[in-house]
């Protein structure tokens, strides 16, 4: 199987309004794919649909060969919500030991699984600090570590699909570079990594791009191909080009 996520006519309705409309795209397995678009364009809703916590999803959405939200998928996906979803009144290590337990890691292996995830996000010095006492960036790294945790009894089953909702927002440039490097290595090791961001210059670190605006897909291609097609110098300019093009096309057809 070389397609990790496939959407066919995907739509989501929230509060009587279409938040996502007629999306068709495919995410290749083992790729580092960026989901880019301005705030409020539907990135989070799309990610929630992928991990199976979004209500009122229509159309087809296949994840790792199963319909999105299938119970068997839950142990194969790592998900980071936009706000750091960790317990502020637990230490970093206590948080991760708990999430390891929920991922099915045996009691004796939880500490090791937690410590490995903590090392991956470079929080070793803060393992025994309460999460609420950490800075914003450290806080979101704890949340990221929880998604990177291995599952299964031995804690060695790494998630096959990582769905990361704006994991690098508010982080310092060095850390952002390190994390993107880490995402690249995870993809190289075989995981499919889908990262959302509203910062267009993060696109250059992705092998593939999904550009989203107003619930519609503007592009689904490789960054180089996107720049060639639009003749734009960077992804931000390409995005603007596509928006203008869509607006012009819309006015011509009288929409």
């Amino acid at each position, binding site marked *: 199987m070389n397609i990790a996520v496939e959407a066919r006519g995907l739509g989501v309705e929230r509060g009587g309004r279409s938040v996502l409309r007629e999306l068709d795209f495919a995410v290749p397995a083992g790729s580092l794919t960026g989901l880019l678009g301005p705030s409020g364009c539907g990135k989070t809703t799309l990610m929630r649909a992928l991990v199976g916590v979004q209500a009122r999803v229509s159309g087809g959405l296949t994840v790792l060969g199963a319909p999105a939200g299938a119970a068997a998928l839950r142990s194969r996906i790592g998900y980071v*919500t936009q706000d750091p*979803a*960790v317990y502020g009144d*637990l230490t970093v290590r*206590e948080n991760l030991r708990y999430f390891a337990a*929920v991922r099915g890691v045996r009691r004796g292996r939880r500490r090791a699984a937690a410590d490995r995830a903590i090392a991956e996000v470079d929080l070793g010095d803060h393992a025994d600090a309460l999460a609420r006492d950490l800075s914003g960036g450290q806080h979101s790294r704890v949340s990221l570590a*929880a998604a990177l945790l291995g599952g299964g009894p031995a804690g060695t089953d790494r998630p096959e699909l990582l769905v990361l909702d704006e994991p690098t927002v508010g982080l310092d440039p060095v850390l952002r570079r390190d994390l993107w490097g880490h995402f690249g290595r995870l993809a190289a090791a075989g995981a499919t990594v889908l990262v959302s961001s509203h910062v267009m210059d993060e696109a250059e670190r992705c092998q593939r791009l999904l550009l989203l605006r107003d619930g519609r897909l503007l592009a689904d291609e490789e960054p180089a191909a996107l720049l060639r097609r639009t003749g734009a110098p960077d992804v931000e300019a390409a995005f603007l080009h596509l928006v203008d093009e869509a607006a012009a096309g819309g006015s011509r057809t009288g929409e």
Partner: protein
Amino acid sequence: MLLNPPVAFATAHRVLTQLRHDPRSLALMIVVPCVLQALLAWVFDDKTTFDRVGPSLLGTFPLIVMFLITAVTTLRERRSGTLERLLAMPAAKLDLLAGYALAFGAVAVVQAVVVTSVSVWGLGMKTAGPVWLLGVVAVLDGVLGTALGLFVSAFAATEFQAVQFMPAFVFPQFLLGGLLVPRDQMNGVLRAVSDALPVSYAIDGMQRVAAEAHPAGLYWRDIGVLTGCILLALLLGAATLRRRTP
């Protein structure tokens, strides 16, 4: 929806660890009911009134405290995104609820044992029946409070609302449960409503232990009804945990 004991135990352990990091709340949960019981003993100068009212009140503290703490904790979990994360992980909803019930049930046991001991041996409260039967009702009251709190947290959007649900949900049960006016002196309508409320059975059970040397059939019926209500509230609570949300 099958129960997965390691996840339930890990959840209980996590909730208790959170409480351990908040020693002030823990102290309030244990100390406040004891102080209130002492105040009650002091207000009722004559010992017989305290012996009559004390046991009934003994069951109300665990209910109120556990209701509040569970409602607020669960609400926080819903709002902080941790619940969404857990539901996207291989955790059954029942595992999480069972974890909460286990953790707060354990706190309810400690609270019930301490308050009962202080009332009986510290304040000289006398009951006709064995003291441990009071403890059984007190623990069930605490667990009932947890179960109701879990259920109610689904209908509160903020911590303020969750706290306001306490007088709305719990006080009517105290008024109609026979704390102020014995249930058999109420008019037909009130009596019928009172029969349908779980706290009535908790107070009945307490009063039987206070008055009867060997509470038997009716006491255990009260215990049975309470247990049934706890299971029902937990199932309702599970139904309010939605994996897919708008």
